[in-house]
């Protein structure tokens, strides 16, 4: 029998909240006075941005714990958080482009915010690729954790670049610059996506631990042996 896990409850709560928040954002909140309905993409775009940076910050902390202690559980949650960050980063860029075309008049431009965000997604996707190339599980954990720690440099840059340098992308809004009627769906969807992200990270971490256990029981064939098998079947 399958056990019902705590993270599934968190994830389902997240999905329910996403329905409520998106309903309020799409049907109850007013259309923006100049942008009209296009602005409503904000109700997923901004929560996605916050949570992408949040899970990557979690990945950074898990990476420190992973190299520091060498415990497989930290490597597993780091992998989950990194993967969630890549998925959310890619969604973030897609949502942003859909909003940008009618608002800015263009799909893309190389301003600091857009460029650093793209670097973030490519960087963390690269770390996941790196992992898949390392067969030794201890080395894989150390190398990818070091890469996550160094790669994290880009995440505060994504956040602060719009304040430090001129950009096409606007700086962060505050409750004073956003109509009060828009704040409630924004907050609900932020928690919704956070809960879904926690679900994703927990599931992925469990999968990573299971994979590692499977490797210990039946280690993958060593490269030299595999090559020998390929030449002499």
């Amino acid at each position, binding site marked *: 029998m399958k056990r019902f896990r705590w993270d599934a409850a968190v994830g389902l709560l997240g999905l329910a909240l996403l329905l409520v928040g998106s309903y309020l954002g799409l049907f109850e909140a007013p259309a923006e006075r100049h942008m009209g309905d296009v602005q409503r993409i904000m109700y997923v775009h901004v929560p996605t941005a916050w949570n992408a940076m949040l899970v990557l910050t979690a990945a950074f902390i898990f990476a420190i714990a992973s190299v520091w202690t060498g415990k497989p559980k930290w490597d597993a949650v780091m992998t989950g958080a990194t993967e969630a960050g890549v998925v959310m980063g890619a969604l973030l860029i897609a949502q942003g482009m859909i909003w940008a075309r009618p608002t800015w008049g263009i799909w893309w431009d190389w301003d600091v915010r857009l460029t650093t965000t793209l670097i973030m997604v490519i960087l963390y996707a690269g770390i996941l690729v790196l992992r898949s190339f390392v067969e030794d599980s201890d080395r894989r954990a150390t190398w990818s954790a070091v890469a996550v720690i160094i790669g994290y440099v880009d995440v505060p840059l994504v956040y602060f670049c719009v304040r430090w*340098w001129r950009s096409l992308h606007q700086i962060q809004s505050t409750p004073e610059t956003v109509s009060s009627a828009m704040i409630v769906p924004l907050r609900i969807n932020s928690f919704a996506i956070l809960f879904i992200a926690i679900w994703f990270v927990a599931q992925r971490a469990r999968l990573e631990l299971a994979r590692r256990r499977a490797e210990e029981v039946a280690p993958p064939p060593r490269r030299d042996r595999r090559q020998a098998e390929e030449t002499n079947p």
Partner: protein
Amino acid sequence: MNERRRRVIVTLIALAVSAGVLGYLAFGGIGENLVYYWSPTELKASGEQAVGASIRLGGLVQPGSIERDPDGLKLRFSVTDGVESVRVAAETVPPAMFREGIGVVVEGTLRTDGWFETHRLMVKHDNEYAAPGEGQELDMKELMKSMQFDESDA
């Protein structure tokens, strides 16, 4: 014990590299080489140097400066930073958000006659989102903040 020590050293080196790179980017003055757009004042101050080069100009659309050709193909307006303004000739369809007082970034070249010619007109939205009827008055000084001219000049 040796293994433990190695782990601590690897962690500290990774953190040091991370902090070093971020510190360099934040305080290393890289921003001076990373100007996404010029203000009209900066463009005028650079004089002949700016003519002909492919650059971006940013500022607010001066109220009352928008002229459209009867055939609808040409658009002329002034971009201002509150001190100087530059006349812009655009041969492009502007996004629906284009209007008086909004921030724009235009990519193109400065002509010898002082006009800025562009084929790529981008609207720079500020960080305000309002319901219809909220805050209708046009406050150019307040709007100018979104162009970040002061921060970048500092």
